[in-house]
């Protein structure tokens, strides 16, 4: 084992956190232990022995396991931002558990760990295989991981919402609650984590040789592929065990190794040795503080969401300090032989959209469940209900797709999208505040959503200005912010308040509350903003060529980026109000447009708008009719189709 002879920093960090945590724990425990023992069932002592103590033990173990997992990921992927949260591994495990609890509850007894492992392994496989095709660029890897995280988390939350009546507890659990009622969980976690830790100890030497570079370490006898597989398997398994035991605890695996590094643990072996200790002490401290601060509510406040609230700003703060070793690979503008002329592509997209619109407007389900065209008596009544929704999702889909096209051109990254920018999350946060603090009805929620989106946009812009609007910083900052907002919403939801259901409805992209006025407003906003975007087509054609050519043709680089980010933000904010933060149309629209041979900015944006609008109309139609009389939110339908579709596409193209 590497000793602390060379560097006392990490040891000091561990000691400090442990002492702080211990002090807070003492404050927690003192009331229970101070009074004389009561005969019989002494609540204070019982809770102390079988709830408080196992909880603190679980915090230590989970913290250590997650931090070890994060350190392993960071070392083997050579990526300082990797951890079970940013790679989507924890979210994958959680989604698998939610799905199993809904559809295969029999699996969850003894098979709980296996289910979690299957989920996290699938998530890791997706993210790593995508990363491998892009040369393990740290930035791309984390971006894909966070998109996957968002998708898994969103899907898990929505499944909960659709079944909310008898899954009340999933709220708490899904967001990572450390609450315990016996020693069973910490004890089983102990031996599992210990077993993995022993394997890690065995590979620590070859792992540290990785830093010497691939050829050198191969020459020294390191079997690279086998080593990578073993280490990633360990990291994934650790995350799965923790998620299976206590749910998703956000960002500990990112924060602990970062602290270790800042405290002076430089060499890989040091990092892998100190990170788990720091992680354990960190989660111990965080959870004790949470319990102390939240008092009686602490059993319902998900520690996982609270760590995310504090962890994600840290990620934000660390961004400028981290040297991202590889720049993003500028996605080369593929000079593929155009299959069609741009005009033909656009005409086809427009025709398909028209058909979709007509179909969606005229076709529905009747009372008995049979398919029916709108007719006779009901014509007016039904159209009054249906048309606003259709046009609102059409406008939103078009706006998201155009925002996506702008962002992808601006950043040169295919995974960039408004969902990832965090603005959607900002709107959600605004709605949450409106609901919980003020509850002013629909118009108030609308206003707060705009304020929330604008604030996030401002924070992103201000944060990015320092970095000269370097695209990767902006996107990662957006994701960090969106993770934080999601966590805050998670905390609000877990208070068990009935208003949380309204919030979940919003997040799932339901058009339930859209009426004629809001739809008209949405369409008008879309028309104005998309026109603005089309007016900026020259900038958008030049920017992907890189900063140097842009400056060379006399473009005000920073100003252009600022304006375009602002425009993308407005488009996203307006669209999110209708279809929620998770639709992924902003990713799909521009992609499909490029696939159709629309490579220049103007045709790509027009094509993306048509395709994005069409996708949302189709999603709304499916959601409205497929399980009628029950309705699946349009945003959810498009997310369910969108994300896997996107993954497939990236595999094919890369």
């Amino acid at each position: 084992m590497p000793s602390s002879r060379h560097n006392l920093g990490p040891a000091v960090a561990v000691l400090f956190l442990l002492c702080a945590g211990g002090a807070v724990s003492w404050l927690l425990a003192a009331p229970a232990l101070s009074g004389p023992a009561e005969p019989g069932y002494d609540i204070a002592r019982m809770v102390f022995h079988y709830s408080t103590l196992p909880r603190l033990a679980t915090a230590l173990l989970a913290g250590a396991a997650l931090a070890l997992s994060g350190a392993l990921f960071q070392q083997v992927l050579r990526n300082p931002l990797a951890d079970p949260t940013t790679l989507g591994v924890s979210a994958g495990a959680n989604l698998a558990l939610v799905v199993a609890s809904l559809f295969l509850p029999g699996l969850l007894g003894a098979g709980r760990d296996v289910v979690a492992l299957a989920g996290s392994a699938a998530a890791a496989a997706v993210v790593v295989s995508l990363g491998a095709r892009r040369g393990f660029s740290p930035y791309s890897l984390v971006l894909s991981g966070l998109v996957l995280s968002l998708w898994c988390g969103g899907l898990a939350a929505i499944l909960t919402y659709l079944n909310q009546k008898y899954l009340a507890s999933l709220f708490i659990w899904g967001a990572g609650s450390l609450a315990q009622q016996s020693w069973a969980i910490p004890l089983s976690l102990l031996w599992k984590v210990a077993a993995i830790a022993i394997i890690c100890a065995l590979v620590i030497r070859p792992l540290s040789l990785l830093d010497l570079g691939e050829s050198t370490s191969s020459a020294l006898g390191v079997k690279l592929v086998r080593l990578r597989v073993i280490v990633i398997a360990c990291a994934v398994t650790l995350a799965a065990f923790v998620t299976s035991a206590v749910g998703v605890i956000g960002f500990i695996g990112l924060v602990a190794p970062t602290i270790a590094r800042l405290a002076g643990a430089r060499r890989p072996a040091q990092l892998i040795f100190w990170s788990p200790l720091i992680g354990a002490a960190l989660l111990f401290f965080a959870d004790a503080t949470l319990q102390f601060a939240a008092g009686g509510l602490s059993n319902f406040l998900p520690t996982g969401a609270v760590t995310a609230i504090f962890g994600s700003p840290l990620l934000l703060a660390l961004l400028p300090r981290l040297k991202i070793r590889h720049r993003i690979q500028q996605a080369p503008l593929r000079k593929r032989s155009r299959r069609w002329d741009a005009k033909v592509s656009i005409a086809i997209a427009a025709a398909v959209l028209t058909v979709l619109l007509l179909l969606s407007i005229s076709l529905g389900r009747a009372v008995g469940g049979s398919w029916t065209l709108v007719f006779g008596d009901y014509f007016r009544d039904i159209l009054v209900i249906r048309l606003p929704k259709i046009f609102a999702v059409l406008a939103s889909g078009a706006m998201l797709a155009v925002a996506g096209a702008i962002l992808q051109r601006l950043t040169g990254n295919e995974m960039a999208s408004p969902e990832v920018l965090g603005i959607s999350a900002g709107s959600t946060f605004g709605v949450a505040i409106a609901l919980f603090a003020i509850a002013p009805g629909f118009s108030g929620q609308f206003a707060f959503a705009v304020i929330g989106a604008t604030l996030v946009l401002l924070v992103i812009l201000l944060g990015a200005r320092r970095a000269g609007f370097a695209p990767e910083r902006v996107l990662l900052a957006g994701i960090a912010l969106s993770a934080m907002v999601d966590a805050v919403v998670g905390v609000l939801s877990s208070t068990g308040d009935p208003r949380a259901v309204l919030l979940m409805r919003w997040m799932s992209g339901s058009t339930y509350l859209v009426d004629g006025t809001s739809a008209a407003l949405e369409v008008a906003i879309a028309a104005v903003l998309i026109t603005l975007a089309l007016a900026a087509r020259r900038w958008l054609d030049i920017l992907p060529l890189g900063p140097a050519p842009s400056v060379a043709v006399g473009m005000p680089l920073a100003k252009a980026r600022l304006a375009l980010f602002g425009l993308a933000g407005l488009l996203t904010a307006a669209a999110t109000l209708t279809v929620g933060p998770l639709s992924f149309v902003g990713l799909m629209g521009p992609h499909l447009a490029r696939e159709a041979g629309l490579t220049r900015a103007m045709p790509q944006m027009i094509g993306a708008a048509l395709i994005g609008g069409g996708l949302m109309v189709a999603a709304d139609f499916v959601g409205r009719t497929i399980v009628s009389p029950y309705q699946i939110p349009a945003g959810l339908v498009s997310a369910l189709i969108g994300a896997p579709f996107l993954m497939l596409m990236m595999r094919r193209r890369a």
Partner: protein
Amino acid sequence: MAIPRRSFLQCAVMASVMPRPAFAEVAGLRIVSLDYGLSSTLLSLGLPPLGISDLADWGRWVVEPVLPSSVIDVGSAYEINFEILVQLKPDIILTTPYLDELLPKLQPIAKVLRLEVFTPDAGPILPAATAATRRLAAEIGRQDEAEQFLARADALFANCRQRLAGKDIPPLALVNFEDARHARVYSAPGLFHNALERIGLRNAWTRQSNYWGFETIGIEQLSTITAPEARLIAFDPVPPDVLPKLAESPLWQRLPFSRAGHFSVLQPALMFGMVNEAMRFAALLTDLLEQDA
């Protein structure tokens, strides 16, 4: 000839109160109910609803009374399917304060009858539910049926009370498990607390709770119940992993309720319902206690 004249008068009164002419033919009223308690009350008034919300979950939460197969599902109460609702052409839509945000969208479709049972100042729920039943009956011209129904309820409570009299039943704590660590415990002014009183039983959880009649507690709090032989009654559905987890938790093992015969799981009964649901609870509970005695 008293009855026809009386119902004629009712119709006349209602026609003057309500603007729509459809109310002249009371028997054919097309009613959609967006609340389980109101739906079951309609059934008991002899006027089955045309459509209700969340029909698919009726069997999981309400079970009895059984709905006629003609009832149409209008979607989830959180997202009413307005296209279906419009096609049903209802005369009356029954709602609760919980769905107030929908009022502007419901009012153009039909007359909306908003009945309050669970409100901050409603007081004890069972009397509030009785009052709401009478009000609903008056609005749809079914006063006679309402009085008969309420008399049936009184008779059932009295019968249960008589069956349990002299059996020396200990105080009962009523809970729904949320997870292995938390439960909702039901007490005054809740519906089931009132039902317990009506059949002569004592609630072991003596603290007043919120206006819905429940309080969320950690299971260890159940140890504050001091009555020596108190029994714990949990309602189905119990979340799947709760009972195995409780079995290994010392917090549960050391509670007096974990002893054999002190804990039972009762079939589902809707604690946020109205008179029918209180009746179902009383009947189920009386059966259980009689079996055990």
